């Protein structure tokens, strides 16, 4: 018995080691750092809550954190709403070569993230594809200025960039649904729409939840997209943290903002899961 559990741990140990080194250690370092104080190029290594009081006293940080959460929330909603029909189409309408469709969806991800963000810059820019297209068609007399360098362009770019992460889990959950359940619903008197609402949607909810988390959690902290297409009004919490570790040179404050952002995201996720759980119960 003992040797068996020992063998289990020894099997686990490489993973365990990687987890400790790769996840737990940086977290410990980050949290420790957040209680120190920056002193020009060095740290004052005594316990202090100064960074956290700074975070709560200067409204800019909380404001930008909540703006980031709002934007990521929008990105998540947009991505899931766009991904669901695509996943539904592949799961229910495509009869042959589903794999080809799935691979096609991931094709944009074979290029670098930066390239995809730049592509949107080209699309949305002052002299970009959309503006010049509309101009040449005579629909516009001068280019639209609101397309780029604002929160909307960040939402559009992120929604596209993370599409595959939403399509795949939703597709998997739809594919798993026993088709006879849909027939049973029709047989029991529900039309196509109500069958979707009462059977397909609740049963694909795990995929929707997974997709939402996969999109929401990483996009809250994203700083590349807002830096490139967001302009001054499109700044997110990731940009603040980045500047703290860079130009602003205040690592402890950056660490404290990271910790606070992490806690907030965790709370949001818990709230979200609790909400969807209740929704499922209500449907049943």
């Amino acid at each position: 018995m003992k040797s068996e559990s020992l063998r289990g741990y020894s099997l686990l140990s490489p993973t365990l080691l990687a987890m400790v080194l790769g996840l737990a250690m940086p977290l410990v370092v980050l949290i420790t750092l957040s209680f120190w104080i920056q002193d020009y190029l060095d740290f004052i290594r005594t316990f202090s809550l100064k960074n956290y009081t700074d975070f709560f006293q200067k409204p800019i940080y909380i404001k930008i954190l909540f703006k980031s959460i709002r934007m990521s929330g929008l990105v998540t909603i947009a991505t899931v709403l766009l991904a669901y029909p695509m996943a539904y189409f592949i799961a229910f309408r495509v009869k042959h070569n589903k794999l080809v469709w799935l691979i096609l969806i991931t094709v944009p991800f074979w290029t670098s993230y930066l390239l995809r963000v730049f592509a949107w810059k080209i699309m949305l820019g002052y002299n970009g594809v959309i503006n010049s297209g509309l101009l040449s068609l005579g629909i516009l007399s001068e280019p639209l200025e609101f397309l780029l360098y604002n929160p909307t362009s960040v939402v559009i770019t992120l929604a596209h960039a993370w599409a595959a992460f939403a399509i795949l889990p939703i597709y998997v959950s739809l594919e798993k649904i026993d088709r006879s359940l849909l027939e049973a619903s029709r047989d029991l008197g529900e039309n196509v729409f109500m069958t979707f609402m009462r059977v397909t949607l609740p049963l694909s909810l795990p995929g929707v939840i997974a997709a939402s988390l996969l999109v929401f959690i990483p996009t809250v902290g994203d700083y590349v997209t807002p830096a490139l297409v967001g302009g001054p009004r499109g700044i997110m919490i990731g940009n603040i943290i980045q500047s703290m570790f860079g130009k602003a040179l205040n690592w402890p404050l950056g660490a404290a903002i990271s910790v606070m952002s992490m806690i907030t995201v965790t709370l949001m996720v818990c709230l979200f899961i609790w909400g969807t759980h209740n929704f499922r119960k209500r449907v049943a």
Partner: protein
Amino acid sequence: MSQDPIISFQNVSKSFGEVKAVDGANFEINRGEFFALLGPSGCGKTTLLRMVAGFETPNSGEVYIDGQPMSATPPNHRPVNMVFQNYAIFPHMDVRGNIAFGMRKSGLSKSELDKRIDETLELIKLQGYGKRGADELSGGQRQRVALARALIKHPKVLLLDEPLGALDKKLREQMQIELRQLQQQVGITFLFVTHDQEEALTLSDRIAVMTEGHVKEIASPAQLYENPKSRFVADFIGSMNFFQGEVIDLNNKQLSISTDVLGEISVPASDSDYASKSPVWVAIRPEKLQPVFSAPDDSSNVIEGEIGPSAYLGDRSHFYVHIEKREEPVLVALQNLERSSDLHRNPFQKVWLKWSNASLVVLPRN
């Protein structure tokens, strides 16, 4: 009763690509009947059932339910409900939720609906299981929930797709009796699909035997077993020994037939006419051949053979008997009436098989 069809198939055909699943089905199912579609897999029985439910549409012909043509009616507006082969219990709902699923538009108040659900739970003997989740039910319980979910809607016809296929033997036998009782209790027409001939014989008032998209014969279980009209039906339902024969002549309502092994026999002529010299099969069920182990005094209606392989089945034993001039052994079933552990007969033992001419079935051979 035969003048009151609840379902009527009129020249119904359905193809999937090149394959003709159902080819010109033309028959009726009576109100209140327990009707079976029986056939080997791929014979089109499930397609026929799904056309009644509305999940498949016929390429030609029309399905009528209670006199109404159904082609333009989607499944959700048809007055039939189905018990699916895998039961299709909604996994995100408990037993009550599953049973109430189809009652959303019933117009019943919450308390009336609760009462109906309780009654239905009682009908299928699952009182107290209302709060169970779908994954907490055994196979038999899942089937009961599937039945309840359909029956609470009071359909004109209950469709059952291989309803007992997923259950083990004991449970299946128990459910057969319960299904039969349930059908009599609720008085709804049951139309069910099965490949299990024993199940069809046990449950049904009438059986349609299908093969390769065609309905070969529709009759009561006893008719199909004792008086089949084709070699396929005779062979598919139960076991049958076939002997080649040729009609010699027909007079005084007696049909004289010369056979390869049984000699010349004379049987009462049935309703079908056979011309002189027409080729026929003379068939007999294994249990209607009486084996004797010493030479009988009367040598008429007796063939001599030698015991080959045998199988002990508890209540009865099966023997294969080799007969001279015949390649295929004859199957004989013998009830094990005495209590003995030595019911295996010795191989190569001589045996005489007796039969009565009334047990012989004459079938067309072509």
